[in-house]
Structures are given as C-alpha cells and as structure tokens.
C-alpha cells in the first residue's frame, strides 16, 4: 500500500477560518490516508472482537466432546490471528503516516509563512509563538488528525459488535450498545480536574526549568562574582513546588486509574452474570458465556481509543488556534505581488517599473539630506547616536533587526525611486543593509556563503577582506569532521562558539560575497580590535571599488578609507569632506570621532 509523499511538493492553502476548520482541512488533504487507516483499524478491532467467539465455540466443543468442532474453532482463531497481525501492521503504518503527514504539512506552512514575513515577523507576532507552533503544537495537531481515523474505526467496531450481539441476544446487545458510550462518558467528570492540575503542574515545571536554564546560562557570572547559594535556594523552592503540584496530579490520575478498572470491570461482571443465568436457564451454552465475557473485555480497545480522541481534541484545539493565528498574519508594510494588482494602499502605491542600473544610481535620504554617490565609498558619522539606526533602516527602505526605528519616516530613494514602494525583492536586490546584529545561520561555512550573489566576489576574497583567517582556524578546531577543509567546518547556532569579533567578521564576509549594487554597513567592525580593523577597512575599500558603499561608523580607521565622509548633526547633514579635512576643520567632527572629552581637549 503506497504512502503519500512527504514533504509535500506544495502544502496548499489552509482553511484558517477557525481551529476546527483548519484541522478538518488537514484531514481532508490526506483523505485517502484517513480512509485507509479507518479500514485497517476496523479490520483489526473486528478480528480482536471475533476471537472470543472462537474461544467460546472451542470450549463449547470440548464440553460437548466434539473434536471436529474444536479443530474448526482453532482454525478460525488462527485465521483471525493471521488477519489481525497483518491488519495491525498496516494500521500502525498508515496511522503514523497520517500523523507525519499532518505535522509535516503544518511545519511546511509555518516555514513558508516565516520566510514570507521576514523582518515583518518581529513586529506582528511574538517569534516564540511561531516556534511553539512548529515544535509542540504540530505534534498535538498531528495526534488529533491521527486519532480521528482511529476513533472512526473504534465506533464502527462498537456498532458492528452491538449489531451481532443484538441479533443473537437482544438484551446483551442493548447492554453493549448503551454500555460503551456510558463508560466513555464516565471518565469525563475527572478529566476536567486532571487537566487543570496537569496544566498547573506544567506551568510550574516550565517555570522551574526556566529558572534552571537561566541559572546555568548565567553560571559564569555566578562563579565569577558569587550568589550560587541564593540561586540554588530559589531553584529548590521552585522544584519542590513542582513536586507538590505533580503529586496533586498523581492523586487525580490514580483515582482515574482505579475508576477505569472498576467501571469496565463492573460492566463485564454484569454481562457475565446475566450470561451465566442464561446458561442456567438453558438458553445458551457455557461456550457462549465465555464468548460473552471475552467480547466484553475486548471492548476495552474501542473505549480507550474514544477516550484518546477526546483527549487529543482538547490538546489539538488549543494548538490549532495558535497555528491559525500564526498563519493568518500578513505583512502590512509592503505591497506583495499578489495584493498590489487589486488593492494598492493609499500610503504606498506600488512602483512596479523595473529598477534600471541600481549600481549607477545615487542613494539619497530625504530626511537628513544625505546623498551617497554611485560607485563611491561614503562614510557617515552621526553626532546623535540614536539617529544612526533609523538612518540605516531608511537607506534600505526599512529593514532592520528588531523594531524598526525608522518606521513611519519616508524611505531613501535610489536613482529617484522610493525604495519602500518597490516590490520587496527588487528593493532588497538593489540595496543590502548589513545591520548591527546580523545573524549567522548555522551550517557549514559553504552553506553560509550560499546566498543570492552577483558571483563577482568569491568567498575566499571576502574572507580575506574581512580578515577572518583566525575565524577559519577556530571553526576548524571545533569541527574535527571537516577534514581540514574550512568550507566544511560547521558554524553553530547564531555562531555562539565564536567570539563577538569573530562573528562580526564572518557576517561582514557574507555581505561582501553578496556583492550588491549598493551596500550599507552599520558599524561593521565595532567588536574588532584596532589592529584588525585597520586591515578590514583597507579590505572593504579594495573589494568595493567602483561599487556604491555606505559605512556608518565612528572609528577613524574606517573613516580614513572613505572617498567622502558626511557628518550628521541634529538630523541634518552638517559637514562633508575627507576624514583628514574634517579632522582639521571641523571641531564637532573631531569631538565625535576621537571621543575626546573636554578635559582631553584642554590637555591636548
């Protein structure tokens, strides 16, 4: 039986009107899988319920000394056993596959949503929520999609068994028909308290885990300064709280365990008792009594499955609600190719004409009056530090890490075209803003440099320009399986194994490899020592020769390499010139760049 291919070539467009509809949509997109799972499940459960009848027939044959019938009963049981074995295997395979299908499909949707939202993500939804959907929630969603078909199998089996018994012995059949729903419902009064206590326990557990993680993450501070006992006592208190909450959960769940033994037990007892009286009155044989007992016991499976489905629905509803919330978010700051045709918004009518020759266009910021000439290296010094971030954001048509400090201000123009009115891809292709907090994505070094790029700059040259030799050595040291090839060395998440300066240089090299027509670098060497910084400054100037580059910086080592330096004071361009000219003629510039305080100037 072939299984659906996963990952899906296209995860489709989900029904996001409600959590229930989303779950139903997921189930519908694997309709065949759902049917197959129900089919195999019914076969499996059906075989299981039929076995007791064979046993009954066998015992009846023994009591009546009919050897032939005994062998026939045995043969039937064997056939059922084989069928059950096959059905069990196929059922498990299909049900698990349905789970995988739903989980993978949801994750594919979330991944597409994440890359669609890009920098818009931070503003619109908590990033934690998105990760929560992809980690814990998909499992619950998958669980429900899986159990729904299992539940269908259980219901079919219950109705089938009721029909068979009803036909043979109406009263017993009625007991089965009504008893199963009654037993399934009997658990519900305890489910509420159990759920509440469990949620409480989970909350406290989460808090304790957070405390432990936090304490351990800051352990170098604790070991360096002190306070271990303080934090240990705090954790102990939290841990004991978890223990007490978990014991309360255990009380309810042990009560439930007892109840789940007692009630079905009473049902089987009652049915058997009735059966025994039928034997006494001569209506049925002892074999049939054994069959009744066995069939009653075999109802445990459908019962368990119905309970599990109820449980998974509770969990999946919450998870699906979050998934729907995350998947419903749309980008509001940019026109998208889909929406721009029919709904041009008033604030940003889209500019769809292609951008011609971005490398030969000047970049202009209307707010400060800054103009970066095409093909030149322009350095910008901001007198007021807070304005630098907003300037960088405007220069890229608004893209920065975290909250956009320049939101609401007009964006920069490239060759007279407003960047934030261009389609996103066009704007990002023309201008690359290398912000202060670029993230290194984990993977091999080769993967790090596998970015959309012009092809003119190979990674080797970019790494040399960014003075990253010692970074390569450090990466190789930590990746014994790279076999000495730096391109196969691995970078851990966010480059955590590297120092701040090393991370900064790798990220710079990546931006240089892209080789965009216009490159905006915001403090690209703030964490690098002066020796290295001076070499990087030379490297950038050399590599970007003839391309437009804007560097926001305060270090003289970088400023000295620029074709032109612009000083921005009080939100406007205050002075222009080379670094040396400005040092000479512009006291305000000198004050910012050399960080001289008034006393220094007096003694100097």
């Amino acid at each position, binding site marked *: 039986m072939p299984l659906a291919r996963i990952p899906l070539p296209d995860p489709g467009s989900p029904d996001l009107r409600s959590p229930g509809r989303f779950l139903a949509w997921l189930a519908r997109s694997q309709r065949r899988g759902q049917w197959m799972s129900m089919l195999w499940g019914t076969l499996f459960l059906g075989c299981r319920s039929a076995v007791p009848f064979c046993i009954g027939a066998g015992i009846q044959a023994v009591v009546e000394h009919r050897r032939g019938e005994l062998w026939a009963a045995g043969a039937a049981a064997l056939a059922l056993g084989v069928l059950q074995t096959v059905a069990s295997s196929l059922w498990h395979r299909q049900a698990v596959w349905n789970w995988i299908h739903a989980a993978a499909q949801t994750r594919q949707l979330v991944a597409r949503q994440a890359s669609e939202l890009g920098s818009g993500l931070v503003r619109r939804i908590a990033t934690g929520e998105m990760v929560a959907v992809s980690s814990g929630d998909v499992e619950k969603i998958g669980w429900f999609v899986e159990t729904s078909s299992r539940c269908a199998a259980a219901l079919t089996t219950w109705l089938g068994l009721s029909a068979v018994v009803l036909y043979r012995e109406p009263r017993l059949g009625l007991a089965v028909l009504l008893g199963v729903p009654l037993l399934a419902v009997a658990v519900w009064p305890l489910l509420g308290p159990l759920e509440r206590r469990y949620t409480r326990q989970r909350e406290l557990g989460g808090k304790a885990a957070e405390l432990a993680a936090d304490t351990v993450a800051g352990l170098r501070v604790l070991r360096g300064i002190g306070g271990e006992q303080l934090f240990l006592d705090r954790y102990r208190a939290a841990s*004991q709280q978890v223990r007490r909450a978990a014991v309360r959960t255990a009380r309810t769940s042990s009560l439930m365990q*007892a109840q789940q033994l007692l009630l079905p037990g009473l049902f089987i007892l009652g049915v058997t008792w009735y059966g025994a009286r039928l034997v006494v009155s001569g209506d049925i044989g002892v074999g049939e009594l054994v069959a009744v007992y066995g069939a009653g016991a075999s109802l445990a499976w459908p019962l368990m499955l119905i309970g599990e489905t109820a449980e998974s629905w509770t969990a999946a509803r919450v998870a699906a609600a979050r998934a729907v919330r995350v998947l419903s978010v749309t980008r509001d700051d940019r026109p998208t190719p889909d929406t721009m045709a029919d709904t041009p918004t008033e604030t940003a009518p889209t500019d769809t004409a292609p951008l011609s020759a971005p490398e030969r266009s000047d970049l202009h910021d209307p707010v400060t009056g800054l103009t970066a000439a095409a093909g030149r290296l322009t350095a910008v010094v901001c007198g007021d530090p807070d304005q630098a971030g907003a300037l960088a954001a405007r220069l890229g048509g608004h893209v920065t890490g975290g909250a956009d400090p320049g939101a609401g201000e007009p964006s920069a123009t490239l060759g007279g075209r407003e960047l934030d009115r261009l389609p996103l891809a066009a704007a990002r292709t023309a201008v690359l*803003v290398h912000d202060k907090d670029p993230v290194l994505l984990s993977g091999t070094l080769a993967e790090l440099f596998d970015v959309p790029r012009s092809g003119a700059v190979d990674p080797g040259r970019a790494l040399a320009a960014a003075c990253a030799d010692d970074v390569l050595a450090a990466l190789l040291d930590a990746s014994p399986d790279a076999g000495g090839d730096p391109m196969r060395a691995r970078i851990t998440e966010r480059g955590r194994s590297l120092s701040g*300066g090393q991370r900064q240089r790798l990220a710079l090299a990546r931006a240089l490899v892209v080789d965009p027509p216009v490159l905006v670098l915001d403090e690209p060497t703030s964490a690098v020592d002066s*020796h290295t910084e001076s070499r990087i400054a030379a490297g950038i100037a050399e590599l970007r020769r003839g391309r437009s580059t804007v560097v926001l910086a305060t270090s003289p080592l970088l400023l000295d390499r620029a074709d032109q330096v612009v000083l921005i004071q009080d939100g406007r361009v205050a002075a222009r010139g080379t670094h040396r000219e400005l040092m*000479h003629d512009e006291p305000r510039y*000198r004050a910012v760049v050399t960080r001289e305080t008034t006393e220094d100037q007096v003694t100097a």
Partner: protein
Amino acid sequence: MRAPEQHATRTTALLPVGSPASVRRYLLLLARRHRAGFGTAVGLHAVGAAAGLVGPWVLGEVVQNLSTGSTDAYITRAVLFYLAALLVQSLFTGLSRLRGGILGEEILADLREDFLVRSVALPPGVLERAGTGDLVSRATTDVDRLATTVRDAVPELSVAVVSLVLMLGALFATSPLLAVTALIGTPIIACGCRWYFRRAPQAYRDESAAYAAINTVLAETVDAGHTVEALRLGPERVELTDRRIGQWVDWSRYTLWLRANVFFPSIDFPYALSLVATLTLGGVYTLHGWTTPGQLTTGVLYAQMLTGPIDLILRWYDEIQVGQASMARLVGVREIPDPETDEGLRPQGREVRADRVRFGYREGADVLHGISLDVAPGARIALVGPSGAGKSTLGRLLAGIYTPRAGEVTLGGAALSGMPPERVRSEVALVNQEHHVFVGTLRDNLRLARPDADDQELRGALDAVDADHWFDALPDGLDTAVGSGGSQLTPPQAQQLALARLVLADPHTLVLDEATSLLDPRAARHLERSLAKVLDGRTVVAIAHRLHTAHDADLIAVVEDGRITEHGTHDALLTADRAYAALWQSWRSDGT
C-alpha cells in the same frame, strides 16, 4: 530496508557523559534513599494485580460447575466473590499508582536538584571552556526526558513485570501443562526482540535528532527574520526546511518499517499462535481428561491476558533507554574533578604577577609562549594586539580562571590556581561582554554579589554606576522583575547592572575583556563613564580594542602570537616607533 544516511552531525560533548558504572552508582544511591517507598508501591500493586487474576479463575469455576449442572445459588456466590476481587483490584492498583507517583516526584526533585547543586559548583575554568549551552540543555531537555521516564516508564515497567510474574504463576497453578503450551510462541518473540532492540535505539535517537533539526532551522529563520529578508534567503530557508523534513521522514519511514513490518508481526503472530495452541491442544488435553473444562477456560483466558504486560514491557523498554542516556548526561557533571586547592593559601599583598607562563587549550598547541608580566597594585595595564594573539587567554589566566601549563600566576605571592575559586573572586574579577540578567527581581540580580547587602547599599551601587536615572523610572524599584519574561533591560542597562554587581562584590583587581565591545559604540561613551567610576582605585588589566583605552593606561603590553612584543608607556611605545606607533598614527590620522 536499510537505515538512512546520517545527516545531523552528532556534536562532540564538551562536558563528560557519565559512564555506565557511575550511572549505576548514582541509581544505587537513589534506590537506597527511596527503598521504603518503592517497596510499598510494588507491594500494593502486587495485591491489586493478584486480585485482577480472580476473574478468569471464577469464570473457569463457573464453567466447570455449569457443565456439571449447577444452580443459581452457586453463581451468586461466585459473582459476589468476583465483585470483591474487582474492588480490591481497583483500590490497590489506584493506591499503588499514587504511592508510585509520590515516589517518582521525590526522585525527580532529587535528580534535578542534585544536578543543579553540582553545576553551580563547577570550576570556573571548565565553564569558560565548555560554555554553558550543553549545561543548559542538560538542565532542561534531559531533566524533562528523565521526567517522562520516571513518571511513566519506570512505574509502567515495574507494574508490567510484577503482573507478568503473577500471571505466569497463576497459569502454572491452573495447569502446568497448559502453561507450557501457552509459552509456545516465546522463542519467536525472543528472536524478534533481539533483532529489533539491536537496531531500534540508535534509529530512534537519529530520528529524534532529525526531528529536532527541523525545528532548529525554523527557529533560526524566525530569529533571523531581518537577516533572511536582507539577504533574500526566504526561498532557500523554505527549501532547507523541506529538505530537513525529508530527512526526518526518511528516518521515520525506517523506524516505522522496523516496527510495522518486523517487530509487531513478530510479536502479534506468536501471540495468536499461543492462544490457538492453548485452545486446541488444551481442548485435546481436556478431551483426554488431563485437564478440566474449567481449567481450560481459565488457562485460555490467562494466555490471552499475557499480551497486556508483555506489550507494556516492550513499549516502555525504549523509553527506559532514552532515560538512561539523559541520566548519563546528568550524572556526567558529577565526574568533573574539582582542582586541588589549599584553603589555607592566602595572598600577601595585591601584586599580580605572571612568571614565564605557558598555556594551550590542546595538548602540544600552546597559545601563550612564556609570558611574564608584573602588575603593581593600583596600576592600569592595557593589553593590545590582533585578534587571536592570546590577549583574552592571558586575561583569563590573570583572573585565575585557567591554570597555566607551565610557569605561575601569583597574587600577593600566592598561586591563583592553588586558592579556591571563592577566594580568588573576592580579590580578582573578570569583566567580559557577558552581562547576563537573571530571571527574577532587580534585587536578586544585585544581591548575588553580596547576599547580605541591604536595599540602601544596592541603591548606592546603582548610583555609583550612573544607573540611577533609569532605575528611578522603574515602577517597582528593586522589586521590578527583570530577565526574560520581565522588563527587558537594554544592553547598556544590563552592562551597568553588571558593573553595579562589581561595586558590591568589591574586588581590588579587575580584568576587563571586551567589556563594552558588543555594545553600540554610540552608547558606549556613557557607559565608559560608569566604568571609570568602578575602576577608580583598583588594579586594572584591560584588553583594549579601542586605542583610546590604551592611551589612558599606565602601561601598554602589545601581545602578538602569544608573546609580549612591546611593553611600556604610551609615550615610550610611540618613541620606539614599532607596530603600536604605526597603528596609533593611522588612528589619529588627523594630520597633526
């Protein structure tokens, strides 16, 4: 079907993982601590499980009596007996679950608290080298996995084993002949298990690693939203996610195959075979008069019941192995040796001295090659030099975090490595770019530096580092919740908090390593004022990234390739006209 190729690289652990022997030792320790609780839980369950065996036996008796012509009165007695057994079974099983739950929670609390107790006492050098990432994942993921094991797997498994033993006992008591017949499928099950458990554990580990890898990709895409957008990596991230999903599915398909195509049939079929054998062969025995119809009934029903505990054992066996791996990682930290220190060793004076110090992170690859340096009390020394020259390593040796391979670092004549870390840190502190804000109140975050400080002193420390302006704006003052989940402090505020801790801890010597380098240079200036106040009157070794820091120092040491190549005052180095002078000239390239 063959196992898929290995995709996710198994990262090399920087911290040790406990050996089987030490895991066993630790388990024994726990077992001894909780012996009584375990005994009670198992005892209660045994009573419950024994009562659960009454049903088939009663039915057998009823069949026996009915087939020989019995009456209503007998049946009523039997039913009442069955009812009593059912009540006992429910009650005792519930009680045993409760006792087991309470015991499990006690053990879990012990496990996680023991782990943290050991973690917070780890030698600073170990933390510095191994980082805290691995430790954090042990404190969270492994503790969590172990919780599943202790809460579910251990009780289910113990219950299943007890039930299985009782069931086999009951089967043999009913009829040894039937018991032997019922075990006919056992060899097949044994073969199937052997085959499966040889492959399964590693396959499951790889599957869950592949599963986690999908999330890593997605979490990164989300976390790096702005970078992904700026570099136009969106389509590539989507493709990477799909590829990771594909790799996970390959593993899932393999484990699914192990279970559905091999393992389950090798269990299910022998079950069916055993049942059929018990019924037909048992029927033949009865026809020959070797057993009674009652015994046959009871025997067949017991044989059918055997699947319950065996299923449980097989199902939870994997989980136990997962728990064992996590346990080994928790126990691993107990194996890190504490360096030998001498409680009696005390510094005589405040002079820090490095004498022909050699040090390397790996055997045969020294980073520092015989460095000697004297730092007089109250002096300011700047270490400058290119990245990777060994400045930070030297700083950590001077702060007593690492022990030199050769040579010695002394404080007031006493070797730093010989003193316990608690004493070293009251004298010397390393200030680096790590400014962790702990989850909790601002007070907790400050008091760690001096647990007995009152609020007046805490406020004073904040004033001393110029943090008063934002502190006064906080709604709840020292009770303000900070750290993740609380009010977010900006990086400069976090750094000021770290400096305020230093004021409270009051060490006389500070080693500054990139303390302000990760900050926005535009915000650094204000912070440097705060820092200057903290440094006042202390001995300072500063690893200088910015030349103006070096300029202000009493002495400058240029570190290149693990050696001090230049050493002297700013003016002396300018006169010497070597590397430092050249750099200074380009930095101050104002033509003057």
